[in-house]
């Protein structure tokens, strides 16, 4: 594994923002992730690919401690954020999630909130009340970063659920960005979207990686090939191969990887 990691690190030439160390995840007795070692360098899009049920969603949910909200779920090993273990006993998972944002598979705008309230929802969690102009500024900045501002600037008070599916997903991206996380986890963010909305999200990834460390879970290999700098292939809860995206897709080192990317299974 270390050899693979080394290859990934060399390929990116960047420092590690986030890293899983001998990490395993369980649902009750079932081990969904087996002793995974994986690094996510800063300002890089890292894709996690693999067939359905391979554990890629579970893995990404472990990276911001969302796995443990499922009853019976538990983990072993470390996840290091800037070298600090987020699973250390003194660490509050709530604080971890403020630093590591997440966008889910299906758009989840809060139905009772307006577009601007959706974006600023995370800002209200800190306890400190923001002044109106400050809040408006953050809302605009986040919506611009999510490439949604031009489409919604005249209807910020309308319900978030009134937007189209693709717009809702970008609203969720804006909502995650508003709290200025350091890492952005995206769990199949395009699986419920049409091709045009998918293209918009993919463009967005290019712009966002200048500021954030991005982990993208996808079942769509073309998407990984188009957008990711590094790619990890996960199969049956094991990390099979990790490296430069081009290398993974052109000269995979492992037989399973080759079988998967050439469509022999999955």
């Amino acid at each position, binding site marked *: 594994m270390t050899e693979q990691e080394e290859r990934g690190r060399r390929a990116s030439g960047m420092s590690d923002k986030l890293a899983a160390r001998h990490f395993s995840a369980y649902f009750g007795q079932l081990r969904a992730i087996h002793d995974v070692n994986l690094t996510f360098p800063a300002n890089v899009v890292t894709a996690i690919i693999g067939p359905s049920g391979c554990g890629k969603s579970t893995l990404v949910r472990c990276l911001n401690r969302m796995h443990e909200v499922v009853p019976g779920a538990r983990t072993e090993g470390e996840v290091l954020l800037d070298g600090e273990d987020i699973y250390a006993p003194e660490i509050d998972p*709530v604080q971890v999630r403020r630093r590591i944002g997440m966008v889910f598979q299906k758009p989840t705008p809060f139905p009772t909130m307006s577009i601007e309230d959706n974006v600023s929802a995370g800002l209200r969690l800190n306890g400190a009340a923001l002044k109106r102009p400050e809040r408006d500024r953050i809302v605009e900045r986040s919506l611009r970063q999510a490439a949604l501002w031009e489409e919604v600037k005249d209807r910020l008070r309308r319900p978030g659920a009134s937007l189209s599916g693709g717009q809702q997903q970008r609203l969720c991206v804006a909502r995650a960005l508003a709290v200025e996380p350091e890492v952005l986890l995206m769990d199949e963010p395009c699986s419920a979207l049409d091709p045009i909305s998918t293209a918009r999200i993919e463009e967005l990834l290019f712009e966002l990686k200048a500021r954030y460390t991005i982990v993208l879970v996808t079942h769509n290999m073309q998407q990984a090939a188009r957008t990711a700098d590094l790619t990890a292939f996960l199969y049956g809860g094991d990390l099979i191969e990790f490296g430069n995206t081009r290398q993974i897709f052109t000269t995979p080192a492992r037989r399973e990887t080759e079988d998967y990317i050439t469509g022999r299974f999955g």
Partner: protein
Amino acid sequence: MKDSMAKADSGSASGEVGPAGAAGGGEAVAAAAPGDLAKAAELGARVKLPVAARGKIFEWAVYGATGACIAIIAGLFIELLANSWLSISTFGLSFLWTSEWNPVTNQFGALPFIYGTIVSSAIAILLASITGVMAGAFLAEFSPPRLAEPLSFVIELLAAVPSVVYGLWGLFVLGPVMRDYIEPFLQRYFGFLPIFAGTIYGVGMLTAGVILAIMIVPTVTAISRDVMRAVPNSQREAIWALGANRWQGFRMVVLPIARPGIFAACILALGRALGETIATTMVIGNRPAIAASLFAPGYTISSVIANEFTEATSQVYLSALLELGLLLFIISVIVNGLARLLLWTIFRPMES
């Protein structure tokens, strides 16, 4: 005709076994008349009507059931109106704001009863909505699942206790507790408010309100728990992923989504409080007077009907009691109507 169809078909279907046949037979039996049912049982066969006929029968049954509900409500209203006509024509609208209730002189006014009904129910819904929503939130969001199940069972059991038992308990347990502890406490610290001033009896408006609250709290709890549980988990995870703790997630996401349902739960419970008779009668004191103090005895519409119906000797007395029934009916309709209106105007725009 229905009969012949069932018979004709039962022959062909008699050899049929297995779950599909059983399900089809069940449907046909449910829709068919009792005669058919008996025959089907006799033959030991699984009755199966043609699909089109089953659809038609179901359609009629649906229309019939709906029509019956409307007919019952209309009939009830007309009958109440007709029987209270003597009282309406004798006292006119002043029945609504006259306080005198004197069977000896045949002078009847409904105001103390309207007041008592509304105030006791208002106390009940105030206490029950706060307690019930908090209990529902605990069961749905905060308690460990292993605790939630038995607790829910116990709370729902409260709804199954007959109201006369509540009345008895209210009279012998709650009444003395109110008289000796709670009401003196309220008077000592909030006695400057007219509602907590005056003589303490133990039985009275406040005790009736508390008993009603206890009776309706299971309704509020169970329904608010269900509507909170119905909030999709993806919503909770979305707010947690932003860095919300459980309480923040509840307040910002779960509660707003569940609010219309919680509101509906309170209205349903209020409906029960308005019509509740026996328990209220046993603890409210049964005095047709309007007092500023909540410690003073009062009277509700349903209590006076239950108490005096058998001793209503004159026509106009009986008619006045029936008019009270009509009033209670109208109050319930108004409360439910207002609630509907509120649900439409306040909550609808947020949903789309």
